[in-house]
Structure formats: structure tokens, C-alpha cells
């Protein structure tokens, strides 16, 4: 399972650049925010497409497709697959429910923490037996994890953990790829400052070679 990640780096890069190309041609965005969003969109989409068919990839693509501003870009990148994917995995109600539940979870966490603090301050014993506490903590954490992992709301227990595992692996590789890409741009800019006159590259290169 983990070994397959290596093969996808090439696919990821291809998809990423294609996505950037499409997004650039589609939208003429000047602000950094917009550019960042389109870059992020292409990166996420590339990661999901390179990974293949898992639960979280579908959920991620669907989530990306539901936002209005991304639709044109997605259509450009995915082409025919766009309609297929959207038709299959569109459940807007679910995500609305998700929105509502986020708030309740957050408030629940705060209230729970406040309750604990209050009881600690009072010095009274905790009214909840420790096993229940552990279970509650775990429950809270899994809720948060469900929120983080795309498509996690629908999963339970072990499947959530396996999806999270896969997601973490893909995220890691995505970050690595973007880092290396960024470093490449850094190097390119620095090397460009050094030399590289277009008129006479050969002699310059040979000179640099021999000097080194």
C-alpha cells in the first residue's frame, strides 16, 4: 500500500502542472489570494486524481466541485470525467448537515472543557467515571478527525482510520512535491541571476563546466 505512493509522484506532477495550466488560461487572477487558491485547487485535485479511487478522493473532488468558483477549472481539467464524478457523488444535503454539526461539536468541546475546569477548581471529584471519560475523549477526537479527513463524516471506526492513514500518506507526498517544486523555482531564479544570456549559451556553459 505504501509503495504505491512512489509511482504516483509522476502522475501527481503531471496533473498538477496541467491543472495550473488550465486554471491559468481560465482565470486571469491578479491577486495573490486567488492565485493561491487556484494553485491549491490544482494541487489537491492532482493529489486526489493521482491516488486513484478511494473514499476520500471522491469526497475531496466532490467538495472541490461544489464550490462555485472552481467549477470551470475543474471542468477544464477533468473534461468528461467531471460530469460522471459530479453526478455520482453529489450529496449537498450531507455537507450542509456537516456544517451544522461542526458548530455543535466545537461548542460541545468547549463546554466539556469548561465543565472539567470548573470541577477541578471546586476541588470536587469528577462526576464521570474514568472509562467514560476516556470514551468521551476518544469520541471527541474521532469527531474532529472526521471533520478533517474528506469524506470522513460517513465513515466509522476502523474505516475512518484507514482512510485517515491513506490521506496522511498522500498529504505527505503532496507536501514533498510542492516543496521540491518550490525549491526548483528558487534555484532557477538564483541561477538566472547569475548568468544565462540567451545569445551565447554554449560557450558560457562550457566555460562554467571547465571552470568547475
Amino acid at each position, binding site marked *: 500500500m505504501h*509503495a504505491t505512493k*512512489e*509511482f504516483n509522484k*509522476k502522475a501527481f506532477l*503531471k496533473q498538477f*502542472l496541467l491543472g495550473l*495550466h488550465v*486554471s*491559468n*488560461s481560465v482565470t486571469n487572477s491578479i491577486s*495573490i489570494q486567488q*492565485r*493561491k*487558491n*487556484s*494553485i*491549491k485547487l490544482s*494541487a*489537491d485535485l492532482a493529489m486526489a486524481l493521482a491516488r486513484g479511487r478511494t473514499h476520500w478522493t471522491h469526497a475531496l473532488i466532490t467538495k472541490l466541485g461544489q464550490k462555485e468558483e472552481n467549477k470551470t477549472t475543474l471542468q477544464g481539467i477533468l473534461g468528461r470525467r467531471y460530469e460522471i464524478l459530479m453526478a455520482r457523488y453529489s450529496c449537498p444535503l450531507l455537507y450542509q448537515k456537516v456544517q451544522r454539526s461542526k458548530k455543535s461539536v466545537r461548542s460541545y468541546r468547549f463546554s466539556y472543557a469548561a465543565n472539567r475546569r470548573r470541577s477541578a477548581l471546586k476541588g470536587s471529584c469528577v462526576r464521570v467515571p474514568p472509562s467514560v471519560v*476516556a470514551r468521551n*475523549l*476518544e469520541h471527541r*477526537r*474521532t469527531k*474532529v*478527525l472526521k471533520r*478533517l479527513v474528506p469524506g470522513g463524516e460517513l465513515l466509522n*471506526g*476502523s474505516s475512518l*482510520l484507514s482512510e*485517515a*492513514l491513506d*490521506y*496522511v*500518506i498522500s*498529504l505527505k507526498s503532496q*507536501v*514533498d512535491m*510542492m*516543496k*521540491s*517544486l*518550490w*525549491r*526548483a*523555482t*528558487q*534555484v*532557477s*531564479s538564483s*541561477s*538566472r541571476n547569475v548568468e544565462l544570456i*540567451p545569445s551565447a*549559451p*554554449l560557450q558560457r*556553459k*562550457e566555460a*562554467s*563546466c571547465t571552470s*568547475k
Partner: protein
Amino acid sequence: MEDEIQPLLNSASASPSVPTSGASFTALLGLPPNRAVELLHEPTFPSDPALVDRAARFSVFAAAAAASASSAPSPEMSPPPLPEATKKRKDGGGSNGKAKVKKGKHAEEDTDGDNKLPYVHVRARRGQATDSHSLAERARREKINARMKLLQELVPGCSKISGTALVLDEIINHVQYLQRQVEYLSMRLAAVNPRIDFSGLDTFLSATTMECGRLTIGNAKVGTELDQQQQQPVWSEVGVSDSDQMNSTTNSKRSQIQLPQNQLQHFWHVDLLNTQSHLQPSVWERDAVTGSTAPHVQREEQQSFVGTGAVPLLAFDRVNPVAPPIQSNQQLKMEL
């Protein structure tokens, strides 16, 4: 369904392999056969533990006795209530009456399900609760614990922590950290380029593909950090090795770069549509001389012209498998 159970009961009672159970089959169960059938097909667990025990024992003995005859009813049994149900199954020979040690789940009665359904067969340990509920729970917990262990290995600094909630905490933190990193990197990438076209990258790559020594040295250095996997595609980010001059080694995490003898090597080929365009034919002519990628490159070039004029497109290419990588490097070196 009851018709199918009847032969089961009959065969169970008539089977010589389990004489004791056969004689007192229904007596053991303590129920009339109809009620037993009801129990069998009940989708939910009965609340009465005595009933559960009896049903379990029934299932166990039925499994031992009527292994051959029960193939008909087993596929049509009600689907298990839990998606990952464990089933305690008696092995063929263990027809002793130690019900304390071995128990079977009855609700998804699957007497012949060993080869049909993907159940996990667990043996209850001595002194542990042999309730059907707890069996399922235990199997579920083991599955979750296995996944947690994998996650612990993945997330750095998590192996020391014991306890599910704290590990989950770490996992959540790690996921949030990675997501934040993606945002941050995308912001940085957006800030670097005036447009999202990586023109700088193109310049850099065209420069490095023309640079003789760096290419060979980069590849040679990278060849020392071989991974064991032979099928890994070779992804040579030449620029990365370039940035750390000649001495330092590339970051092993980033560079999935290797140079095994008979592997393909992927080169970046750059498609500049700006002032440096006149260089392109020269570069690819050189490649054509080496016989590596000329036809591919030409095609890529044409494809890239389709897009908007100012946006160069980076294209992947594969070196012709005929030419081994080292030779092509040497040829490039000679020409440049």
C-alpha cells in the same frame, strides 16, 4: 427457511460424529425447533443470555455435524448485523462439551461460511467473556488497534505515546499541520511567480539540461542512493541536485531519484515560447543526435503550442529505452 433448517436438525440429530449432541440436540437447546429457527434468523441479539448460550451451542454443534448439508441454508442466512462480524467457529474435531471455551455467534448463523464469507475466526481465551457481543466488539477493537498502530508508525513521535485518545490527538495535529503546510506552500508558489506558469522553472530547466557536468554529476551522485525497488520510476529532478552544488547530497526524501542500470530516466523537457525559443531546436537537435527523445520532443512541442501563447507547458518525456542512461549522459557531455 424453516424447511431448510429441518434437514439440518435432522442431520444433526442423525449424525454419528456427534452422538451425544445428536441425542440431546433439541433437549440441549431446550426449545422446540420452530423457536430455534426463529432464534437463528433473528437479526438482533436476544436479550436473554440463556437463550443466547443455547443458540450458540446449537450453532456450534450444527456446524460440526452438518457441515456438508448446510450449504443450502448458509448463503441465504440473514446478513450479519455488523459489517465486520467475527464468528466463533468450532473446528471440525472439537466436539467436546466445553462450551465455556468455544462459542459461536448465532445471529448470522453461517454454518458453512468458512469459505464463503470473509469472517474472522477468533478463539476465545480462557476467562474472557465469550458473549457474542463481546466477541464482535473484541474483533472490532483489534481491527481498530491494528490501524492505530499503523498510524502511530506513520505520524512522527507517536510511537511512544500510549492510549488511544492521545494518539488520535497527535494524528489530528499532524493532519492539520500537513494541511496548513499545503496552504503555505501554495501561497509561496503563488507569490514567487508573476503568473502561474513557472516561467522561471522553464528557464532553469532549459539551463540545466544544457549544462554538461552538472547533469552527469547529479546523476552519478544520485545513483549512490539507490532504493531497493526496481520498479520505481526514475524521476530526476536535476535542478534539485544542482542546488546543492557538487558536495552535498540531495534530500533523500524528496529525490525519488535513482539510477539503476536498466531503468528509464525521465527528463524534464522545457518548452519556452519566449525569447529563448531559438534555443529549443538546438537543444532538441542535440538530443536527436543522441537518439534519445527527438520524436517525443517534437510532438510535445507541437502540443504545447495549443495553449495560450505566453504560457509554457512542462512536459514529461521518457528517454528511449534503447539508450541506457549513462551513455546518453556521456553523449550529451561530449556534445555540450
